[in-house]
């Protein structure tokens, strides 16, 4: 047998052997981008309905029924039920938010901290575009609800995000997020969330699982908000729908 004496050639062969498919590091940002589809992100526009039920301690609060219309970085959430809030709307464009309801003289600007109800901020009910807003790195792997998952650490790219850091569990097979932990800039755990995907949408000829249930829990107090999604439609929304003059 002839010995390999050239060190460069030896290194090249070793590099070739170690670059096989079983050793490839997964692209965290691409995984994140694909997982966004299942939560309404990266689509030309989407409309859905949500039933939100907040709970604080033993007290189950009134369910709110919303219709959400969202495009890339704008959304409108309109309250359908309870009847006393009917017609109330929250418009979000970038980090700007306005609130209006019948009887108000004009839409009122509100800060991003203004919650819709319970633990749900506006960022939780709008379409999720984490790939555009966060930089993802792979932090490990684990099993959640019997599914093998990548653990992604997300860091906000700008100050317009609802959360500064997120730890995100995305399944290897379906590429959907099953669990999330939301952190403040100082690293304090604020909320956790779990997701289920009982719906399906069709986009570019592909059937994509779509979120049907999200449970957001407060990490500091005994409170959570149960969000159930329905009537999901991919639909391009005219820019004028996000005009303040059309809100009332």
């Amino acid at each position: 047998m002839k010995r390999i004496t050239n060190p460069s050639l030896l290194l090249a062969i070793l590099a070739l052997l170690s670059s096989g498919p079983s050793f490839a590091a997964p692209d965290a940002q691409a995984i994140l981008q694909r997982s966004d589809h299942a939560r309404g992100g990266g689509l030309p526009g989407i409309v859905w309905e949500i039933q939100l039920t907040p709970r604080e301690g033993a007290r189950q609060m009134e369910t709110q029924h919303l219709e959400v219309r969202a495009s890339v970085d704008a959304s409108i959430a309109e309250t359908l039920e309870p009847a006393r809030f009917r017609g109330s709307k929250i418009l979000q464009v970038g980090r700007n938010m306005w609130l209006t309801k019948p009887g108000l003289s004009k839409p009122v600007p509100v800060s991003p901290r203004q919650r819709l109800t319970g633990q749900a901020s506006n960022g939780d009910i709008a379409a999720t575009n984490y790939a555009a807003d966060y930089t993802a790195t792979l932090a490990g792997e684990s099993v959640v609800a019997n599914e093998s998952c990548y653990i992604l650490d997300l860091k906000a790219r700008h100050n317009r995000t609802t959360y500064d850091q997120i730890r995100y569990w995305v399944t290897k097979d379906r590429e959907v997020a099953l669990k999330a932990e939301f952190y403040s800039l100082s690293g304090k755990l604020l909320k956790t969330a779990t997701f289920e995907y009982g719906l399906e949408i069709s986009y570019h000829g592909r059937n994509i699982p779509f979120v049907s249930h999200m449970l957001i829990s407060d990490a500091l107090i005994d409170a959570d908000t149960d969000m159930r999604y329905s009537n999901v439609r991919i639909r391009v929304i005219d820019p004028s729908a996000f005009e303040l003059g059309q809100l009332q």
Partner: protein
Amino acid sequence: MKRGWLILFMLGFGLEAQASNSDWQSTWDAVLYAYPERLWRTEESVLNPDNRLARLADTSFTGEARLNLRLANDRYRISARPILSIRHEKESGESEPQGYLSQWQLRTALTPYWAASIGREVMNWGPAQFHSPSSPFYFDNGRSNPLRELSGVDAVKLAWTPDHRHALSIAFVEDSGHKHASPDDWKNTLLLKGDMRGDDWAGGLALAQARGSALFVGIHLQQTLNDACLLYGEISSTKRIDTLLSPRDFSQPFSLLAVSPRRETGLIGATYTLENGHSLTLEYLHDGHGYSRAESRAYFARAASSLAAAGLALAASPLLLNRNYLHMIWQNNLLDGDDYWRLMMSHNMDDGSTEFTAYIEHAVNGRLTLFLLGTLDSGGSRREYGMVIERSLNLGLRLALP
């Protein structure tokens, strides 16, 4: 609304709608209001001596139905907001029923970016809550009667929205809509409005000019500083018509100026939202059209001289009597939970008078809400907050249907 405009629009709208294959969807809802009101008039009011001028009812009852009707498909929308109300005054025993269209609109999306509409539309904008300096039609911002809904102005509008960060519209406002004043400041007004929105700011410019009147220029701007804090401002420059001049020397009489000199009105404000969803708002307003301290003192002295002078002073007073105001709001989350409350304080920095307002809502169930509105004016008979009314209390219920 001129019939020609309406017929032309209806014709185009009808032909276009007929050609559309999209499904029409109709919806309706209604809100019923019932509330008694009790007023405590200012004793020895200079502007309303013995209630002979304003003729305010001490006790009244209002019942009101606000309907919301809508027919729409992907391209077209027809909406109407009729209001039926009756107000009964206890002392006189008189009842005043009325029915009118508070708002209505025929709107068509010509393309994804262009839309045309005709109707009665509330053209009120800007982030300020005390008053709306940047809006030509709604400077008062509904403050004179907080339980009444603003009614729209009659207008034909063409809007261009190339994306959700830019919008431009041109409108012809025929008049100020339901129960417009005569003469109407905004009869035959051309309005041009542009809006821009960045990642964390929004702003707009409005130019309005009624036929034969001066140009109104209004600008509004807001900035989301961080997760909790908003900073905003509004400014306008305009001339007002039929302005009551009140010389400092009160031996000189009132005089009515057909058109005032050009003056500026500006407001700056900030809102801070607490972790629990409560928000605190502070606004400062300077109105160049208001009286100086000496002029408003002379205004009351002159009004006290005769009933005719008091009548003129009451009818033709500036929209805000003086020039410098502070407005504060503390409220909880508008959309969260069973109860909503809002506490407000408006302070006239020139004459030192203050108005305190409390509004409280309690949800009995998903449809029925009880509410209470109370105001307290501290100024007495010769200062703005208190010159006619000292206190008022409304206690009512609101029922949402279906």
